[in-house]
C-alpha cells in the first residue's frame, strides 16, 4: 500500500478517535451534572416532606406567630412548584426565602420554652438543619459540575462537538439576592 495513503488513513483515524473521545467526555459530563442535580432533588423532597410536620408542631405552641408559619409554608410551596417546573432561577429565589423564613421561625421559637422543650420540635429542627447543610454541600457540588460542563462546551475544540450534537449548558443554582446581600447590622440596633 502507498505510504502516503497509510499516513493519511492514520491521521484520519487519529482525528476520528479524538472526536469520539471528546464526545464521550461531554456525555459523561452531562450525565454527571444531571446526577449532581438529582442528588439535591432527593434532599429537597425530603426537607419539603418534613416542613409541614414542623409547622404543625409549632402551631400547637405558637398561636401568635401565624404570619411566620405561613411564610414558611408559602416558601415551601414555591420551592415545590419551582422543582416541578425545573426553573432554577425561581428555585434559587424560593430557597433563599425559605431559609430566611426558617431562620425567623427558629429565632421566634426561642420565645416559647414549651416548644423548645418538645421532643418532636427538637427532632424536626435537627433533621431539617441537617438536611439544609447537606443541600448546601450538594448545591456546591452541583455548581462545580455545571461550571465544568459549561466551560468545556464553550472551549475550542469541544465547542465544535458540543454545537454539532446540541450539548446545552446547565444553569447554576444561586442564592437569591436578599440572602447574599450584606447584612445592615446598624439598622437592627437603630430600629
Amino acid at each position, binding site marked *: 500500500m502507498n*505510504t*502516503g495513503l*497509510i*499516513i493519511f488513513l*492514520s*491521521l484520519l*483515524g*487519529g482525528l476520528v*478517535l*479524538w472526536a469520539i*473521545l471528546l464526545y*464521550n*467526555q461531554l456525555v*459523561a*459530563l452531562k450525565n*454527571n451534572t444531571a*446526577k*449532581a442535580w438529582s*442528588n439535591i432533588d432527593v434532599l429537597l423532597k425530603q426537607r419539603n416532606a418534613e416542613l409541614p410536620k414542623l409547622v404543625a408542631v409549632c402551631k400547637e405552641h405558637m398561636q401568635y406567630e401565624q404570619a411566620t408559619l405561613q411564610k414558611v409554608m408559602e416558601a415551601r410551596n414555591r420551592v415545590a412548584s419551582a422543582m416541578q417546573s425545573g426553573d432554577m432561577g425561581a428555585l434559587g429565589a424560593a430557597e433563599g426565602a425559605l431559609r430566611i423564613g426558617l431562620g425567623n421561625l427558629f429565632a421566634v421559637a426561642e420565645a416559647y420554652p414549651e416548644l423548645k422543650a418538645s421532643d418532636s420540635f427538637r427532632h424536626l429542627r435537627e*433533621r431539617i438543619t441537617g438536611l439544609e*447543610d*447537606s443541600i448546601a*454541600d*450538594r448545591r*456546591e*457540588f452541583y455548581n*462545580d*459540575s455545571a461550571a*465544568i460542563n459549561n466551560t*468545556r462546551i464553550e472551549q475550542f475544540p469541544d465547542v465544535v462537538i458540543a454545537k454539532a450534537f446540541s450539548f446545552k449548558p446547565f444553569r447554576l443554582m444561586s442564592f437569591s439576592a436578599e440572602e447574599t446581600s450584606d447584612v445592615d447590622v446598624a439598622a437592627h440596633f437603630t430600629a
Partner: protein
Amino acid sequence: MWTWLRTLLPELGGTGNPPLGDRGGLDWLQVMDNQRIAVLRRGGLMNLAAAPSFVLLWGIACLGLFYYALKPWLLLLATCSLLFSLGLFRRYRLIADTPTSTLSSGAQGYVELQGKAALPDGVGFRGLPHLPVTVWLPGYVEDEPFVLDDGKGRCLLYPRGAEIIACPGDSHYSWLNAIYPGQTLYALGELHTLRSVGDSDEQRERLAALLAEWKSNPLQLRRCFDVDGNGQIDPDEWQQVLVAAQRWVTDDLREQQRAPGTHVMDGAKAGQLFLITNIPPEKLAGRYRQMAFVHLLYWLSCLLAMLII
C-alpha cells in the same frame, strides 16, 4: 513465622526456598522484586506509558526503527503512541473535570474524594512484619478494603478492580510503594451509600418480634388496649394492637433509613476510571497531560519518519 508469612505471600509459595533470610529478617530483594511486578499490574498499561523511563525507551525505539527503516514496525509504534496519547488525555480530563465531593453531603455518583487513609475499624495492623503499618501494599495486601477520611465523613474503599498508583511515602522507605495510614489519598469512582433497606420481610419479622414482646407483658397490654375494661383483649382491641405495632415498626424503620449510612466506593461504571492514589491529583493530572502530549508528538514523528524513509 514462615508458615504465617507463606499464607500472606502466595506469590512466593512455589519458590521452594523461603524468602526469609537465615537471620529471621525479610528477603528485601524478593520483596522489592515481588512488589515491582504488583505495582505494574495494579497501575495498568496507561500508567506504565506515563512513566518517564518508559517514554524515553519508547522514543529510543522509535529512533532505532527509523534508523533501520522498518516501516511496518514504525506504523505499529505510531498507532500505540496514538492510543497512549488518547488514553492519557482521557485520564487527565477525568481528573480535571470531576469536582471534589465531601462525605458529609454524601453526593452519590461519579465523584472524586480527598482525605486521609486509615485502616478500617477493628484492624490494628496490616502489611508485612519489619515494615511500617500499611493500608495497601502491592503484592501482599491488595484487595482488603480501607478507609478514606475527609474530616467530615468516612468512606470505605474496595480496591479490587481499582487502578492504584502508590508512590513511596516521605517518612518511610524510599523504595516501598505503599499507602500508609495518615497519607493524603485521592480517589475517583462511583460513590454510593449503603442504608438499611427495611423491606417487607424485615418489617414482618420486626412486627412479629414486637407483638411477641408486648404479649409477654399482658398487664401492660391490657392497660393500654383494653378499652372496655373487661380484663381481656377482644378481637376489635387486638386490631388496635396490630395497628399500633405496625405504626411503631414503620416509624422505627423510617428513622433507621434516615440514619447516616456507610459510604462505599467500589468501582466505576463502564468506560469510567476507578482510581486510587496517594499522589496529589494536580501532579498526577499534569503528568498525564505532559505524557499525552509527548506520545502525540511520537505519533506524528513516526508518521513523518515513514514519509521520509
